[in-house]
């Protein structure tokens, strides 16, 4: 009897295509892109942050002197804006959380067959240009707009004052802009909660408020963390709302950086401020994430 042996490559099936070089080949183009156009520019920027103007006095020309004092100069010149950015971003994040949570809750638990449609509707407004939306608010809240007219008629607002060009308007604009970033992660987290868990809480003598405090909210915490991160981080660096809806006294750190780049051509200070902003955000994020206890970032 003939002895036939089927020769074959060793089978290493756990998942997918299995040559050891494959993952690295897949990763290479994308990571290379990020390396060249994200990492390298940041390193470059770090280098710029320690430069000083050349003696020629020419605008925009600097030499590398490793002057770390640039950072101190930068922050002392922009302390107010820095603090303001963090504060505005925090307020906007909290407001967004307050507005989005009940909305996400309603969609997750009370919407039945309309769930998908409602999710689309939450995201839909953001298909319009964000600048158009912000300017729309500027006009809606403007002195000729309906809101001010009504408020003046109700004597809640004096004829001289308005709503725009104020911190109130800036924060309102920011809150509005980041609502879907807050709502969607909240929804995703709430949706995973088995409604029977909530029923069990009721069965064990918890009223609605206690159930929320002790069961629902803790279970939705990953969504809260994700949402607040996705809102706070871009909010802290935002400057469009401040430009369109604010006044010179509401300038945020983003405005300062922009003007240092384009108007006052002071690259080292702009670079230093950028890194300070990033550092502030990263520190706050790490403190927050460690306390909230969630590790999954990506």
């Amino acid at each position: 009897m003939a002895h036939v042996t089927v020769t074959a490559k060793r089978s290493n099936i756990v998942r997918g295509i299995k040559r050891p070089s494959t993952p690295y080949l897949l990763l290479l183009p994308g990571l290379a892109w990020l390396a060249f156009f994200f990492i390298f520019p940041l390193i470059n920027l770090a280098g710029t942050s320690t430069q000083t103007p050349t003696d020629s006095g020419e605008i925009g020309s600097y030499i590398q002197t490793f002057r770390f004092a640039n950072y101190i100069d930068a922050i002392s010149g922009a302390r107010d804006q820095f603090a303001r950015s963090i504060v505005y971003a925090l307020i906007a994040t909290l407001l967004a959380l307050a507005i989005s949570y009940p909305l996400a809750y309603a969609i997750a638990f009370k919407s039945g067959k309309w769930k998908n449609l409602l999710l689309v509707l939450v995201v839909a407004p953001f298909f319009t240009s964000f600048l158009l939306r912000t300017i729309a608010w500027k006009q809606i809240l403007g002195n000729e707009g309906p809101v001010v007219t009504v408020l003046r008629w109700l004597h809640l607002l004096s004829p001289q004052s308005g709503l725009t060009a104020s911190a109130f308007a800036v924060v309102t604009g920011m809150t509005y802009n980041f609502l879907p970033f807050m709502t969607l992660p909240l929804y995703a987290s709430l949706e995973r909660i088995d409604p029977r868990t909530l029923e069990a809480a009721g069965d064990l003598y918890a009223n609605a408020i206690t159930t929320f405090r002790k069961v629902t909210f803790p279970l939705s915490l990953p969504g809260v963390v994700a949402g607040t991160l996705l809102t706070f981080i871009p909010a802290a660096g935002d400057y469009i709302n401040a430009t369109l809806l604010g006044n010179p006294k509401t300038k945020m750190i983003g405005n300062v950086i922009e003007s240092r780049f384009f108007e006052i051509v002071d690259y080292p200070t702009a670079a230093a401020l950028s890194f300070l902003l990033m550092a502030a955000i990263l520190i706050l994020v790490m403190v927050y994430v460690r306390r909230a206890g969630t590790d999954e970032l990506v």
Partner: protein
Amino acid sequence: MVDIAASTKGDLKLSNLTKAFGDFKAVDDLSLVIPEGSFFALLGPSGCGKTTTLRMIAGLEEPTSGKIAIGNTDITYAKPYSRPVNTVFQNYALFPHLTIFENVAFGLRRRGIKDVTEAVTKVLALVELGHLAQRKPVQLSGGQQQRIAVARAIVNRPALLLLDEPLGALDLKLRRQMQIELKWIQTEVGLTFVHVTHDQEEAMTMADTIAVMNEGRIEQMGTPVELYEAPRTVFVANFLGQSNLVKGKVVGNEGSDLQVSVHGNKINVPASRNFAKDNSEKSVLIGIRPEKISIEHAEPNSLGGGVITDISFVGVSTQFQIQMPWGQELSVFEQNDGGASHLQKGDTVTLSWKPSFTFALDGTSDVDAGTSVNPDEL
């Protein structure tokens, strides 16, 4: 692509098959032969290595050492798509984006067969689901999905069909029905089936041969009757059905039969049913199945002085728990044919049975091996 199935036929032979994950041996030096055309069951509790063995046969897991062959063809390291082996997965793994027809035709198409219609239609008729050919898996019930999973595998006429606990997700009545159907399909189509399950009733119903596995090794292999009536280890005695195991001491031989003293009672064990090894203390475990014991009729082997502590009526039988004088609780199942209906809790009874039903096992074994739940772990 080569039509593999037609060219490879024969018995499935596993030789010294081992799968180790670090220090842990999921499958430990396993050797067995599964005859072509038989319905073979790998039976054991979770974690015993039966699924790992199946996956190695399918090619979804690579053995650490050992050999797998079908007839004269060594397939130990062949890729899954090069083997004439098909699998029915536990959760069916039907392709959600393809119709039922395309699901069933998948293997045929990959093998390069152009005209699949006839084969697919035939096998769908076999499982009586031809009318669902254009639906998607999500539209089918669990039982229907299960049958399609089987159809998808057998349409390829593999040398070997592997079933990984395919009936686990079905409710009882449907499971019973599918057991009969699968057995029928197997005899109808003539393929070798290897069925992995933890359900001993299922294995005994369907299989020609059962291998009971525990901790990566085979405890015992044989026909359902052999395994049930003559278990050779405590694990098998407890895992298949229930057994009463009582420790005793060998006191002599009557011809070739064994004489065992069990707490003062003389028990006779036929030589052919003595599976114990000699040990220094001369201890053995006497085994007798609960349904073989009679409370009413006297038989040569008996244990006296038992007190009934519990009586449960379960339709077909009445199950008694009897507390023996040495503290152990034994079980007796009496068929409800009018015999023992007058017995009450607290009655003192003698348990007796025919010697030919007795089996003797190693005295040093753990009496609880193979029983399912440890109450301490609840």
